[in-house]
């Protein structure tokens, strides 16, 4: 089992030695049992660091902020940022490296192995507790989580409240790291796309009504986009004005910009948005499940990305986030790529 004290020790060391400018990790939230992202600048703050099954966030998303901030600074601190990553999150780092969005020496990776479990799903936890408030959730022996509520401590088999993505995990420890906590025990799911089957097996019209019902709920808060480490475009198809506006941008360029998607949360517009996102994440999504977790309307967005992940694997034998040197899915091809669908 991962001992959080080991992580703290390393965090203090790298901060004291000035190896990193700050560390992105997890701390306890102020309103419940869940963790929240922590930005640790001094060794005194390291005390706040935690590691437990509530550490769901994919913190690599904050590397995008870091890059933008650095670009604005006149004399940026060039030291790396320390970042705590799980196996899935480390795949995000590999994609960011592959796309040259970040350099390897921009990050000091404190990898944590999820060993044989993973992180929890807050909604499943709440159901399990019948709406009772959890005060603390900890890793326990034998693939159990220990949950503390006002009534005391109970043990729950991890699988009952694990996040869906953890049940289909393809990388339970970070392959890329500067220091690793926990054991490199394999817990790879042999059926990583199993959950998709329940939608794939529906008839075409049932699939349509499923997605229509789901995407009609969308309120276009763009939390799915905002939380995604791969959604780092300066300009997004749904935004209303040009972002890359400079003094040289002409009025015509601004005026001629195509409005692909209306702001209205209509079926047609929501579909374009989510389809574009899905296709743009094809071969890049590493299934951290953050888009689905943050969705306030409970849209099962993970399935859209998961479907693309599965097709990339089955059609092109392509896996995202394992090899920083491989070309991206849609900027490469093989002679034998399938073409039976082409007339």
């Amino acid at each position, binding site marked *: 089992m991962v001992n959080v004290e080991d992580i703290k020790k390393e965090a203090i060391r790298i901060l004291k030695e000035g190896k990193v400018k700050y560390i992105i990790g997890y701390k306890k939230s102020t309103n419940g049992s869940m963790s929240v992202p922590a930005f640790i600048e001094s060794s005194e703050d390291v005390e706040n660091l935690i590691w437990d099954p509530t550490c769901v966030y994919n913190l690599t998303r904050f590397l995008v902020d870091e890059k933008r901030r650095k670009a604005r600074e006149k004399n940026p601190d060039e030291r790396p940022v320390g970042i705590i990553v799980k196996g899935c999150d480390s795949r995000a780092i590999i994609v960011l490296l592959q796309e040259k969005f970040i350099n390897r020496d921009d990050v000091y990776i404190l990898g944590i192995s999820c060993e044989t479990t993973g992180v929890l799903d807050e909604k499943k936890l709440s159901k399990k507790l019948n709406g009772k408030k959890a005060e603390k959730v900890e890793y326990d022996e034998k693939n159990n989580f220990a949950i503390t509520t006002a009534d005391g401590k109970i043990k729950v088999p991890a699988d009952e409240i694990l996040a869906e993505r953890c049940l289909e995990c393809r990388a339970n420890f970070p392959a890329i790291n500067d220091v690793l906590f926990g054991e490199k025990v394999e817990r790879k799911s042999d059926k990583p796309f199993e959950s998709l089957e329940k*939608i794939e097996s529906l008839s075409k019209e049932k699939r349509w009504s499923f997605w229509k019902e789901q995407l009609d709920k969308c309120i276009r808060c763009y939390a799915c986009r905002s939380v995604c480490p791969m959604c780092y475009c300066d300009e997004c198809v749904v935004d209303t004005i040009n972002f890359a506006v400079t003094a040289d941008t002409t009025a015509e360029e601004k005026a001629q910009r195509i409005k692909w998607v209306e702001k209205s949360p209509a079926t047609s517009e929501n*579909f374009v948005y989510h389809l574009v996102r899905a296709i743009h994440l094809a071969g890049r999504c590493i299934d951290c499940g953050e888009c689905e977790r943050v969705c306030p309307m409970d849209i099962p967005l993970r399935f859209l990305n998961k*479907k693309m992940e599965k097709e990339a694997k089955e059609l092109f034998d392509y896996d995202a986030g394992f090899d920083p040197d491989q070309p991206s899915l849609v900027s490469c091809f093989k*002679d034998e790529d399938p073409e039976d669908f*082409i007339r």
Partner: protein
Amino acid sequence: MTDEFEPRIVAFLCKWCSSAGSDLAGVSRMEYPSNVLPITVMCSGSVSPLYIFSAFNKGADGVLVSGCHPGDCHYLKGNYYARRRIALVKKLLEFIGLESQRFQMSWVSAAEGKKYTQVIKDFVKEIKPLGPQTKLRRNQ
């Protein structure tokens, strides 16, 4: 006289092959349905998935992407990239429940005027029974 449904097909045709192929069909006076709104693009590899989604969003009943045969791309590799990308778009559209017949891809060379007319004929024939595409269409 009954108003038979005539599907509208947006066809993204590569300038070097498929667009020339459609021209050949035209100048050779080959007969084919007039349901196509052709959009000439530089290469099938330059067709962004966004164009495809947007065509459906703006009311297309079918979308065709057509490029040069493998090995014939003016830019050497564009159609190979297209093949990958279109395969993914096709899977995605099927996954959300759009009729798979509504989105197709073809290889049509500049000399294949006849093939072009056949592709269009088949396309129209296949999607006519489906009726108008309303799933992704913007409600005006």
